């Protein structure tokens, strides 16, 4: 009817649903951002029916058990976990669980046991094998849906076995399926906020992937509405799909999703509707796909070493835009980090590009060897009398930035010493501003906390279970403003082509923003990070130097002066006054 056929933002998504086309990341965000509850409800019902749903609604009669409430992890949303020493701590033996289950089975006739519990370090893997075997032998017709991925991961630690071996042993004694608990929201930022002690989300995928290979069906879950963004929710829905796309068992996985009959055909695993698909119109789409998938597989199978190999080879694109058109080319500095990718994405300008680490660029700008380069905010301020700024560009973040992390076992208010890297002056000063009580020591020396930036920070967030504190987020919490990490500084005398170059840099950023997936793919090729990871990372960075960013920069410089890190807060002087909306 007319209303329902009316063109709106959801019309394209409805069409995809009807034609069986997968929804992409942007579709997911569009859905999340829609305020048309009923249109969403109708689409969801359509999706349900298209997957075979009818007028029946399923439920299962099950028995919910917790084998133990002792847990080593301290998740912020959990009111269940206790330590072994607390009075109300319990860990039930196989025979205790069987006694309870058999008695209740006589009363209710349940068909399934759903059992999860804390990650107790006070048992061995044999304990888990024993409780599964006992329950299965006592109630052989009852389906055993047991243990979150976190618990399976915990068992690998207890036993020294791989995820697959743990699951194989449990399956052999009666494990029927896994519930999907412990997934929360996968975004690393969110995990660190709500469950800093939990293992990295990739282990969730490894566990479930291993289960699917062994023919153990699983559920997946999402706990949302806390600190996550809409994008992170969509990412959460999308990720099982990406993972599935690389696993050899992918097809079986899809077929197996119906195994849990009480879920009905619309159960989530493998059926998650979102997949980050490349936009149409980019010619290399097909060829790219396998590479992108490999990147994901690297991450899924070996989240540590291989996923983050930084290749550091020359950018073939650099030559492309360095076309000589006559006259002295602008010498443009480029930080060798991945955060430069949007600025150089489709830079249409004649420049001589000089790449280097931040300290190198700082030095060369001040020596007049570069006409313009992104330099750290604090270095700019210390030399502001000799420098002017491009008025429309900076590198900033409003909240988490991922690449600047304080790693600390102690709560931040108790940190008295920080080991810092000399690589980034601004991050060091920011640490000083945020933790004025803490003294600084060189990296490698003993300290309460350590400051990591760039690749080291990104890698560590994946590999190290120690709580990570994102300085961009801490800054936002402290000031309510974006944190400006770098500005584009130009030594005097100024090159005549700077205004034109700035236009070209801004245009490149704009194009990069319009094509986030192409950007992520190309940056992935150049820097070696997984494309999906980069897409999320770029979303956090801002390049526009607007009024809020300027306020953030000035606030930072004022606080830096208070801590003695800056002599005088300079007035910002620009290459030209731009109209800032």
């Amino acid at each position, binding site marked *: 009817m007319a209303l329902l056929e009316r063109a709106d933002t959801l019309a394209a998504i409805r069409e995809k649903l009807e034609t069986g086309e997968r929804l992409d990341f942007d579709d997911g965000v569009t859905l999340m951002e829609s305020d048309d509850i*009923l249109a969403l409800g109708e689409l969801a019902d359509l999706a349900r029916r298209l997957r075979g749903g009818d007028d029946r609604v399923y439920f299962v009669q099950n028995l919910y058990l917790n084998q133990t409430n002792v847990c080593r992890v301290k998740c912020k949303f959990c009111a269940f976990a206790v330590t072994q020493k607390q009075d109300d701590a319990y860990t039930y033996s196989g025979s205790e669980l069987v006694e309870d289950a058999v008695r209740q089975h006589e009363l209710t006739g349940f068909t399934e046991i759903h059992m999860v519990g804390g990650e107790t370090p006070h048992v061995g893997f044999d304990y888990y094998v024993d409780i599964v075997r006992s329950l299965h032998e006592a109630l052989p017709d009852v389906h055993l849906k047991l243990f979150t991925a976190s618990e399976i991961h915990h068992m690998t630690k207890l036993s020294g076995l791989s995820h697959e071996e743990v699951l194989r042993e449990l399956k052999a004694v009666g494990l029927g399926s896994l519930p999907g608990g412990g997934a929360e929201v996968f975004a690393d930022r969110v995990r660190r906020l709500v469950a800093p002690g939990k293992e990295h989300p990739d282990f969730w995928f490894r566990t479930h992937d291993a289960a699917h290979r062994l023919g153990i069906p699983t559920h997946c879950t999402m706990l949302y509405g806390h600190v996550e963004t809409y994008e992170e929710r969509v990412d959460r829905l999308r990720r099982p799909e990406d993972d599935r796309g690389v696993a050899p068992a992918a097809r079986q996985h899809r077929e197996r999703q119906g195994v849990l009959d009480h879920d009905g055909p619309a159960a989530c695993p493998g059926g998650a509707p979102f997949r980050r698909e490349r936009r149409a119109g980019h010619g290399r789409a097909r060829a790219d796909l396998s590479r992108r998938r490999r990147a994901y597989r690297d991450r899924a199978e070996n989240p540590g070493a291989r996923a983050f190999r930084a290749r550091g080879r020359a950018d073939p694109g650099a030559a492309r835009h360095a076309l000589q058109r006559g006259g002295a080319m602008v010498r443009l500095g480029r930080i060798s980090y991945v955060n430069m990718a949007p600025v150089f994405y489709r830079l249409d300008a004649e420049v001589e590009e000089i790449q280097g680490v931040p300290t190198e660029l700082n030095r060369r700008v001040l020596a007049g060897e570069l006409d313009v380069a992104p330099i750290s905010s604090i270095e700019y301020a210390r030399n502001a009398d000799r420098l002017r700024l491009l008025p429309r560009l900076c590198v900033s973040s409003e909240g988490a930035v991922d690449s600047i992390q304080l790693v600390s076992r102690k709560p931040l208010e108790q940190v008295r010493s920080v080991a810092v890297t000399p690589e980034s002056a601004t991050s060091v000063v920011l640490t000083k501003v945020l933790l004025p009580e803490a003294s600084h020591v060189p990296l490698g020396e003993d300290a309460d906390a350590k400051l990591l930036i760039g690749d080291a920070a990104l890698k560590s967030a994946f590999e190290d279970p120690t709580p990570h504190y994102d300085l961009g987020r801490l800054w936002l919490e402290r000031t309510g403003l974006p944190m400006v990490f770098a500005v584009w500084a130009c030594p005097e005398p100024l090159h005549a082509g700077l205004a034109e170059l700035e236009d070209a840099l801004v245009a490149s950023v704009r194009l990069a923003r319009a094509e986030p997936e192409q950007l992520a793919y190309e940056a992935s090729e150049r820097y070696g990070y997984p494309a999906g990871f980069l897409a999320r990372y770029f979303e956090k960075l801002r390049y526009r130097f607007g009024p809020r960013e300027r306020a953030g920069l000035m606030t930072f410089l004022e606080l830096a002066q208070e801590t003695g890190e800056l002599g005088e807060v300079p007035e910002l002087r620009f290459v030209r006054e731009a109209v800032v909306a």
Partner: protein
Amino acid sequence: MTGLVAQGNKVSEGSVSHVLERALEGERISDAEALTLLESRDLVAVGRVAHEIRNRKADPDRITFIIDRNLNYTNICHTDCDFCAFYRSPGDTREGYLLPKPVIFKKIEETIALGGTGLLMQGGHHPDLGIDYYEDLFSSIKARYKIHLHALSPPEVQHIARRSKLTLWQTISRLRDAGLDSIPGGGGEILVDRVRHEIAPKKTKTKEWLDVMRHAHRLGMSTTATMMYGHVETVAERVEHMRRIRDLQDETGGFRAFISWTFQNDGNRLAGKVAREDMPTSFDYLLTQAVSRIYLDNVPHIQSSWVTQGMKIGQVALGFGADDMGSIMIEENVVSAAGTTHRTSTEELVHLIKALGKTPVQRDTLYREVKVWN
């Protein structure tokens, strides 16, 4: 009944869309068509059309609410309604009360201090209170405070008329002169005498309820209309109720808003008359509210009832034809006596409205903008 529903599922699938088509084209739907919608299970389709019609009648980007106080000046009542857990019988000196004037004044002062613009005053049918009491109370309130008096549901007005041996016209006109600004639609329940006889045998009958509203409208007062359903009425009787509202509205145009809710089933005798499997659910609530928006094409505002449905459904209902979230209810005694205690604050209401992507607008009793909560 069950036969009708089962049949409806099979043959009226097309006619649900037909009814919705007609409603979207701006045509008035018939009683039979309203019944078709109420008996359908197409909550989303009915809801979307109700929402579309709401968007045509009221600003699609705004949701209104009011800050007012529900002041129950007495709980003494001789009407003995089955669904009421609030009243106490005359002579009950232990739990019966009649608020003294200073207490009422204090409550009004609190209301104004909280940014409130109105007072919703309703109470039991106290055998000792005649028109003199109300004239004195209203005029002394109006002499002291600038506040909108939205008071005395039709059964109370009828009670005062009887007690003081006046006609309805005389009663309402004197109350208006003493300061009464508008009359709430309480006591409407289901405007079908079969039902009224069953659930509230001593209470105002359909014709009398409508007469109070008719007189009030003619005297220049606007009022609201309500419906309490999901107990012993049939779905057809719900439609009959709405038809009576629509007919009177055609005649007088005096209803500002329609508010419907499911009856609350704790602490009252009516609960015993409703089988467990017939208890109304959130589904019934949303569907009925959506149908009321479509059917009552001449009533400007539909309120969602978070007080009875809770904040969650109260918010969702704003997508099913409602354009107003009612009052933050600084004080509410009647519904909470029946076991339903949903409380809110302006902050919470504003948050719920903003979460829908709408602008929360505080209004007064007559739906005039007081403040935009950005």
